[in-house]
């Protein structure tokens, strides 16, 4: 085993030349993933990066770990097989809004509901990049793209609500260029036992530039983002213009706060990641621009048994109950008869 304690970012950088467009949000995500990996206490050989097809799915080629660039939309299924075979590996799935939510929506849903202990990073740029600029399942209604010259007529899917609907045990949203928040989210995802779903808002300067500029830009973010912090009230805005989110009957509304006013006394919700029911997280997921600030952070983190652990347990239980399988015994089980000369 290699010494996990001595690893540095360089150990995770492969010799492949990066092939994303200049200014692509993927660069920042890659750099931050490479920075976090050495801190996780996992030997390098135990990391596996699995991807599907799309700009984001080139990611494994740039990580000096085990990697598998698979087929469009199916990465979660490949990752499930890897993790089922080898529960000790640290498996990371890299996907995008097209790969993960369009062609691969089915696998994403089922991998989430099985609670396979892996980390899934969904790079959401709300556009198809690699195929040169068609609208994606997260593109907003009216988006003009090469395939929708008159504007998209599809209602978009929200990745966070999708993951919650599928029963995700860990759901977070972070931003490509916010190194500190991104790194912290990756660490949280790795700590989580079970499927960790992270939506990363990612800029595609070529086909959908500045889609997330309100939350990427530090100045605008104060108004546009609601940073989730466990145990803290849902409050945002500049110090002299603070507002909070109240949730009544599952319906969020905005409440203005006077300077120095206690948000809790005004009925502002206090963020809590571990609600048994996903209803609260759904309410947060419904907060969309421009009517509301966009929540950034961990929406939900609950514990549930994981798929690969239960599968392994069944194997272990069967062996301790029946003894290690014996082939000759199996072949001779049930009714047999012997023919002699």
């Amino acid at each position, binding site marked *: 085993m290699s010494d996990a304690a001595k690893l540095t970012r360089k150990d995770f950088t492969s010799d492949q030349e990066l092939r994303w467009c200049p200014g692509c949000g993927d660069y920042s995500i890659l750099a931050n993933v490479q920075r976090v990996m050495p801190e996780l206490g996992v030997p*390098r050989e135990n990391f596996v990066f699995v991807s599907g097809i799309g700009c984001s799915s080139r990611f494994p080629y740039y990580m000096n770990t085990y990697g598998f660039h698979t087929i469009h939309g199916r990465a979660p299924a490949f990752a499930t097989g890897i993790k089922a075979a080898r529960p000790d590996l640290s498996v990371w799935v890299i996907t995008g809004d097209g790969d993960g939510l369009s062609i691969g929506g089915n696998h994403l849903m089922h991998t989430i509901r099985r609670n396979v202990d892996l980390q899934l990073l969904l790079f959401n740029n709300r556009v198809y990049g690699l195929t040169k600029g068609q609208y994606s399942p997260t593109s907003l209604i009216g988006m003009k793209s090469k395939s929708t010259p008159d504007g998209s007529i599809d209602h978009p899917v929200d990745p966070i609500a999708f993951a919650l609907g599928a029963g995700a045990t860990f759901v977070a949203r972070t931003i490509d260029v916010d190194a500190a928040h991104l790194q912290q989210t990756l660490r949280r995802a790795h700590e989580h036992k079970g499927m960790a779903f992270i939506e990363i808002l990612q800029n595609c300067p070529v086909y959908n530039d500045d889609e997330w500029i309100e939350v990427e830009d530090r100045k605008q973010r104060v108004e546009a983002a609601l940073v989730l912090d466990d145990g803290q009230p849902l409050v945002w805005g500049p110090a002299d213009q603070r507002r909070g989110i109240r949730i009544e009957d599952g319906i969020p509304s905005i409440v203005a706060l006077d300077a120095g006013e206690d948000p809790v006394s005004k009925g502002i919700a206090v963020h809590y990641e571990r609600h048994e029911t996903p209803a609260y997280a759904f309410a947060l997921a419904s907060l969309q621009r421009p009517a509301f600030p966009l929540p950034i952070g961990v929406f939900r983190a609950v514990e549930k048994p994981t798929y690969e652990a239960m599968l392994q347990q069944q194997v272990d239980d069967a062996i301790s109950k029946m003894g290690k399988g014996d082939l000759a015994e199996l072949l001779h089980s049930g009714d047999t008869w012997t023919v002699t000369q």
Partner: protein
Amino acid sequence: MSKTSKGSSASSQKRTEKLEHVAIRFTGDSGDGMQLTGTKFTESTALAGNDLATLPDYPAEIRAPAGTLAGVSGFQVHFASEDIHTPADHPDLLVAFNPAALRANVNDVRPSGMVIINIDAFNKKSLAKAGYEDDPLPELRERFKVVEIPLTKLNREAIKGLSLSAREGDRSKNFFALGLMYWLYNRPMEPTIRWLEGRFKGNVLEANIRVLKAGHAFGETTELFPVSYIVPAAKIQPGTYRNITGNTALAWGIVAAGVQMNRPVFLGAYPITPASDVLHEVSRFRHFGVKTAQAEDEIAAMSAAIGAAFAGSLAFTTTSGPGFVLKQEALGLAIMAELPMVVVDIQRAGPSTGMPTKIEQADLLLALYGRNSESPVPIIAPSSPGDCFHAAIEAARLAVEYMTPVVLLSDGYLANSAEPWLIPDVEALPRTEIENHTDPEGFQPYMRDPESLARPWAIPGTPGLEHRIGGLSKEEVTGSVSYDPENNQRMHEIRADKVARIGSVLPPLEVKGPSQGDLLVVGWGGTLGAIVTATEEAREAGLSVSNVHLRHLNPFPANLEKVLGSFEKILVPEINSGQLCLLLRAKFLLPAKSMSKLTGQPFLVAEIRAEIDAMLGQEN
């Protein structure tokens, strides 16, 4: 039924006659328990030491409308004191539980064969439901020995006094027929009683046993059957036997492959007829370290298996035609990534959903060419139910030795048919232990073994071997992404060469019959029994006919061309429209003749025999 001698049995006052072979077909509604009845009769018959072959035939619907032709389920069992290879073209005896079953099957019965009907199920309404305008029995009595038994009534009498609902009670009537058959053919009842005891309790157990015995006693006392029959044990190779279906053998082969290769097995599958039984069966063997996963769809099942293979498991996926189509893109990736795994396609009648429970072997070209670009893959096809066991092990062995996905083509006939199977000696089974690559010194993901051209199996978790694989074109040796034109050409050639090299290690084809002559019948897969029987018969009739059966469809064995060239004519019977024939003609430029059947049913011996005769200018 061919009579050989007469005598009298000790257990009965009645006469017994000795027969060499008998074929019985049990038919009824799909709710009447015909598959179970047939299976139990088969088990007892196997224990009696006969050679046997079975053919289950049932509707895809779980409970098709009762009493209709669509809902008829049948199970044919052929047993003999000699070597047999098929379930027989024509049953000697038909058991029909209702008019629909009679109508759907009676014309298959051999002339003046026996037809046993449950007369209680014959009335105006049920006859109409089966599409009979008039009572068919008078006409049938002319052609067959029709025996009318009030099965429903006799069953009710047998269970009188047990507190069972009328519905529950009526369900045991198949055991009355089974008991009667046990008497008629002097089979032991004990295996069935043992099975019942393990399966049921209380009144239901009591009812089934009583009814089984009542059926037996009825045979002994009724005047309807003056004779019972004995089919002596077959003279077969010494050893310990069991009865096995193709799907069970395949499932055990998957488990055995893991043991023989010392690797944990991973099976990813999605439910599909007629492959689901393999998933069910393999899932029972967790104590062999086997992991099975029912995936969300066919693609995920295949993808998970590839993932497990990447992580070092001996990976399988099992499916049938429509599911095999869905797996093709991922199969292309496994070929590109050069990962070892086995894709099992239990072919069924198509196209599209087709007839899920009926037979076809029409996915050969799909397996060979059903992917984008050039994507060579080895193909193996077992030829009997028991052979599915060995084929699974061989497919897995080739996969790991050559680091390639392998396709195993079984079919609905092999899957559900049963035969006595000589249990192999575990010690004598092939062992292949391919070690994971662990040495970082000079490691490259696409370096190759000079003989097999296999790349190393370097699995995650191994220090110093971190590397990336994927579907993009690979640079030779390094495996890095490459768009270099010359490199792409070479990699195509290497992948093709790697699969082709398997051909040189395959055992030479063995011709059954003279090694040269007028006609060679070439087959593959589940048609073996019919072809062997037809060619043997033809040889006995003095014709110069041999047969050869292909287990390896890609690559072909090295001596195939020579074998084909030793005969004047070549006939290729297939349950498709001539797929292997097309390949043979294309590859060897030979005037092979296709014989095609697409009814969803297996070949009859007589059909192949007629074609042989026609090709050799024989009058029929």
